[in-house]
């Protein structure tokens, strides 16, 4: 039987497992999912955790092992150490090497904490449950200033389109949600809030309408913005830049720099910069039986869950077409995102502006927030395998 191995069980890996199950039905190949966690953390919901609700952190765990096993897929809990594309094996930390015929790599990008001197997970974060919980707990204590900093994205020089920040949406979301919460607490006037981004504009991947709205909203709420940030070092209470004065902030919350994948580097599968070099179907440029899905792929821009889900769909449909002699459809990306604004509102953006298209739909209101809440709860209830998948 054809052996399919999926590395990673978060957005991209889970969607890959779904599409394999959906397309092949009961006659699916021998599928093995590998991840270090049996429970997936639904990361888009962590912004509410970081915005002063630490107890919510453990509400957003999804039993992915159970989901896969219910569908007849095998789940291996282990750390993925190396891929040997020649022998078609995946080396794990505490299991025998796992053979594959087709491999889907969806392990994401490693956080590049060490790429900025002085920066570490202990600086504050939002992208993992424990970091969001810690940030959410810290803001309950009195403080006078907080910085929401976005790390740079270390793209390969030839990559297109260009994006400066690793992922800016969570930083804006936490700043807005925290602003709303602090106002409710009557503490907002005593707190200086600053968003710091390496991008020239806020919401660089969304489009001009969304960027303009974000700029206005930041101003309206007295949240300062530093753009084009070039970090040199971080220390307790201060962020230092190459070309401007340091920013002093009692508390910080970082979206870490993204600098590719150690797994790919170690396996010799990266593009020289730590990213998966994928064609328009997600296939590796040298190894046709290896697909890259989600944040790990050089073409996954911005690094959003929606993009990872679309890439999983494209990659599995390509694999399915090869098996059934069909014609696959290439990856046609567009951004679909709802950004929490607090006060029960959200900013919905549907845009292909980043990829050279000219379309951008932007809507601000309660309905956008409701749509996001519905998606979040739907994802949790269906363990990521929703009746309608993007």
């Amino acid at each position, binding site marked *: 039987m054809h052996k399919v191995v999926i590395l990673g069980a978060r957005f991209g890996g889970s969607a890959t497992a779904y599409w394999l199950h959906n397309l092949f039905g009961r006659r699916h190949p021998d599928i093995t999912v590998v991840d*270090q*966690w049996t429970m997936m953390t639904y990361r888009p919901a962590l912004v509410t955790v970081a915005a002063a609700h630490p107890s919510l952190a453990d509400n957003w765990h999804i039993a992915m092992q159970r989901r896969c096993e219910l569908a007849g897929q095998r789940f291996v809990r282990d750390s993925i150490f190396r891929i040997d594309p020649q022998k078609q094996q995946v080396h794990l930390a*505490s299991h025998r090497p796992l053979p594959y015929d087709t491999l889907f790599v969806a392990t994401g990008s490693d956080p590049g904490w060490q790429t900025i001197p002085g920066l570490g997970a202990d600086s504050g974060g939002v992208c993992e449950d424990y*970091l969001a*919980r*810690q940030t959410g707990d810290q803001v309950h204590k009195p403080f006078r200033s907080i910085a929401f900093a976005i790390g740079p994205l270390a793209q390969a020089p030839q990559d297109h389109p260009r994006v400066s920040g690793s992922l800016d949406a969570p930083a804006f979301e936490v700043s807005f949600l925290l602003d709303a919460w602090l106002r409710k607490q009557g503490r907002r006037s005593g707190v200086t809030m600053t968003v710091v981004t390496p991008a020239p504009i806020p919401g660089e991947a969304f489009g001009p309408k969304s960027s303009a709205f974000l700029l206005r909203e930041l101003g309206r709420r007295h949240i300062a913005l530093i753009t084009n940030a070039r970090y040199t070092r971080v220390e307790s209470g201060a962020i230092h830049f190459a070309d401007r004065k340091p920013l002093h902030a009692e508390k910080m919350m970082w979206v870490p720099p993204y600098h590719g994948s150690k797994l790919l580097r170690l396996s010799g599968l990266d593009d020289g910069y730590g990213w998966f070099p994928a064609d328009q179907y997600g296939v590796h440029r040298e190894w046709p039986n290896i697909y890259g899905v989600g944040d790990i792929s050089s073409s996954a821009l911005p690094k959003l869950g929606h993009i990872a889900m679309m890439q999983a769909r494209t990659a599995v449909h390509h694999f399915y077409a090869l098996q059934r002699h069909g014609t696959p459809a290439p990856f046609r990306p567009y951004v679909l995102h709802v950004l929490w604004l607090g006060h029960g509102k959200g900013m919905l953006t549907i845009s292909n502006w980043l990829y050279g298209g000219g379309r951008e739909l932007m809507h601000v209101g309660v309905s956008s927030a409701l749509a996001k809440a519905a998606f979040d709860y739907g994802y949790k209830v269906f363990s990521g395998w929703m009746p309608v998948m993007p």
Partner: protein
Amino acid sequence: MGATAGIMAASMLAALAVSILITVLGARFLARRAEHLLGSSPRTSLMELFYTLQAWSWREIVLTLRRAESGKPAEHPMGSPVASPPLLDQVAFDPATFHPNASPHTRDIRLDTEIGPRSARPLRLSLPVLIAPMGYGIALSADTKVVLAQVSSVAGSAASSGEGPYLPEERAYAQRWILQWSKGPWNHSRAVIRLADMVEIHLGQGAEAEIAVHKNRRLPRRLKRMAGKQSIVIRAGIPRSFPHLLPYLRRVNPQIPIGVKIPASQHVEADLAVLAALSVDFITLDGSEAGSAGSPAVISDHFGIPTAVAVKRARDWMNRHQVRHISLIASGGAKGAADIAKLLALGADAVDVGSAVLFALSHGQLAKFVPSFPQGPSALVFADSKAHPHPQLDIGQAVLHASRWFEATAQELRVILQALGLDTVRDLSRSALIARSSQAASLLELPTAEHPATGRLTQQVASLAQEYQRLLPSLELQFSLLQSRRHA
């Protein structure tokens, strides 16, 4: 109506009078019995308990009963009492005044440190505290290990595998992960070594010396599945392959610090000489106060030397032999910032903390045991089989409380450094310490609160030598003058 009320009042008064009478007579009866008991032969009365507790501690009684129950060596968790009061409590800090100058800084006191400075990728810590190695399955539950890994990341510390098998989620959560190379049947693959940020070869520990450990009860199913058998054996002694182990680990992961953990012994200097010759990056000394989830009490309570003494002697030896590239980790008995600072001042570069972190992470969850579960609170964090149901650890709450403990400890370390007039934790030295007892003074060679002139002998000899050195030039001058006059 009035008659009924009168009858009720009279009955109540009568009942009160009867109860007072019973109380008085009862108290008198009890007093007589107690008096009789005190005068009776202790061999035949409860009074033997009085004499027993004069000679025996509750600890020894419980261990004796445990031996009688099981027919096996008795065990207990949570460390051993070595001195009373503990040796570190017999040491105080010397506050900065005019000499040395008290630093005016209240901010920017640095706590960061690094282990294995010679290695290409030293282990950098935000504060000189490591979470003590406690293995999955043989000591802690998987949930507790996950908590410790998360806490290590938010606190800027490091998590250690301990002697247990590899837990992928622990590695995933810990930003800095120490592989403890145990003599157990796991964690020896090249992949696991490559995933580590530091490797500590476990040759022995304070609570177990270097004996073999057999475990077949209360093992979680996942551990048995990982080990592929129903019982676990961690071998005794120093492995035959030990001389080749260090070069092998360096070949597999050449960038990280590699060191050794040994129990603190009376011959610690000889051990250090061997390890220094092997060019290790760090040495962990596990003192006799150190605990484990369950070690034979005859070992944990009766072997080894205190952590503070071991650290002091080790640092002296390293200074004498100009060994500056090996980091020293103190393990065993540190309960909080004061103990950590004292061990750092005695010569440690970092301190392992185990029980204190377990207490901190259990905070707010112990009430779950009352009244339904008969186990002790440690059941919340220790590994167990499903046959012994107990309350589940709330991971989120545990991480928050343990992180706050780290935060408080960091603040307390800064307060101590501020009071000592120091800017960085690396400046802590023995000159900051005072002995509060003659035992601490002699074991740690610290000055006591007495006048310095009546301090330890070596100090007196040193000051005498200094005086002679000062005197020597003038004596030489006088001698030369006398010589010149004689010649003249």
